[in-house]
Structures are given as C-alpha cells and as structure tokens.
C-alpha cells in the first residue's frame, strides 16, 4: 500500500486512535474518558477503511460508537454516587509493567515472524462476500451468535429489573 493517500491516512488515524486510547487511561473525569473512548473507536473504524474493509468499518461505527458507547454512558449515569473519578487501584505500577511487557512481546512477535505476505490488492467490495460467507460457510456460528444475543439481552434485562416491580411491569 504505497500510494501516499493511505499512508498519510494510516499515520493520522493511528495517532488519533492511540492518543485517545491513552487519554482514556490518563484523563480524570469518567465522562471525558467515555468521549475519548468513542474517539478511539472512530479511529479504529478509520483504520479499517484504510484496510479497504468498508463493511466492517461502518459496522464498527454503528455498533461500537453508536450502541456500546451509549451503554457505557448509561452505566455511568445510573451509578450516580459511585464517584466519577477515573482513579487507579493500588496495583497501578505492576499493571504498567505487565502491559508494557505484553506490548513489547506482541511487537517483537509481529516484527520478527515473516508473515507470508500476499500481493493481493485490497478488496473491492466486501459486504456481499461477508454476507455469502456468513450464510453458507459460517451458518452455525451465525445461529449461535443470534441465540447468544437473545440470551444476553434477556439476562441483562432480568438482572437489572427491580424485584419489586414484577407486577408493575404493565402499569
């Protein structure tokens, strides 16, 4: 991928994504952390588009920065007295060391191994290919994912529902 457009795009998006991910850890107020999280989701979506994965990029925007960010915001809003600070636990130093080690290990692995790079150009359009793959090659995982979504939705609703309002559901 040598045309300058994608290179510039990659570096810009990489900086945005990693910068905002770092800000999520560094910023004090939890609401600001969520906003930076959304920014990093959008950065990752941009990276997908530079990898010519347009369907997944748009799905990322729709699901991550559209739905999951709202879930996180609702969690923060529904826990008012819990303090909105983004403080760290006492395990701060070992966490830094461990994640640094993980980062170097992954980095070394990715640079050292010779991936069998194929000289295939980017995909023209992926939406129909994904659709076809989902429905004939991965039909079983597709159904399982559907069942899992249903179970997760019901579980979340039942956990959070106030015990006292069974009868009041339809008032």
């Amino acid at each position, binding site marked *: 991928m040598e045309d300058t457009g994608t290179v510039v795009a990659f570096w810009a998006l990489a900086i945005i*994504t990693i910068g905002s*991910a770092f800000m999520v850890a560094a910023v004090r107020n939890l609401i600001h952390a969520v906003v930076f999280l959304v920014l990093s989701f959008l950065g990752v979506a941009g*990276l997908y588009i530079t990898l010519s994965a347009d369907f997944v990029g748009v799905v990322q925007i729709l699901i991550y920065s559209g739905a999951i960010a709202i879930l996180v915001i609702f969690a923060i809003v529904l826990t008012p007295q819990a303090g909105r600070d983004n403080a760290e636990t006492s395990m701060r130093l070992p966490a830094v060391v461990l*994640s640094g080690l993980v980062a170097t290990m992954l980095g070394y692995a990715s640079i050292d191994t010779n*991936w069998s790079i194929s000289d295939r150009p980017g995909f023209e359009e992926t939406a129909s290919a994904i659709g076809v793959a989902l429905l004939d090659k991965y039909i079983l995982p597709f159904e399982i994912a559907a069942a899992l979504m249903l179970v997760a939705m019901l579980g979340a609703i039942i956990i959070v529902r106030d015990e006292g309002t069974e009868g009041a559901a339809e008032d």
Partner: protein
Amino acid sequence: MSVDLEHYLMVGAILFAIGLYLALAKRNFVGVLMGIELMFNAANLTLIAFSRFVESESPIDGHVFVVFVVTVAAAEAAVALAIAVLLYRVRDTVDVDKANLLKW
C-alpha cells in the same frame, strides 16, 4: 514509505496494552469495561490486518470473525453493565476493590 502488516500489528499491540492497563489498573468497574472494549478493538484490528495482507484461500474470513467479535462484544458489554448497575445497587459502589466478598 509504505504501510504494511507490521505497522497495523504494532498499532494493535499498543492498543491492546492500553486496554490491558485499563482493565488491570482502573478502580471503577466501568473503567475496567472500557479497557475490555479496547482489547476487543485491538484484536479486531489485527484480524482485519491479517485478512488484508496475509496469504489465504478465503481472506474474507477475517471480516466474518470481526463481525462475530463485534456482536459478542456488544452482548458482553450489555451484561457487564447490567452487573455494574446491580453491583452499585447492592453495595452502593462500583469500586472494584470493594467488591471482594463472594457472597453478601
């Protein structure tokens, strides 16, 4: 100056590390959850990078995996936040340190 697989993997590794740090070090349960979401994103990024660069007979599988990861991550986020609200309702705090009793 061209961009190839190693660049994307490095970005994925750094993102994963930040997500791990968040999950380990944050006091607030929602902060931990943000870390987990970041880790999911890092994994997705490397999957898409592989499906774009690496030799394979059906490269679209990387995209299918990411679609599955996104759906499962959404479901997991919903359940995790339900737990966060429940934890807050029971123990009046979402501080990960304070929730150390298995049965209350």
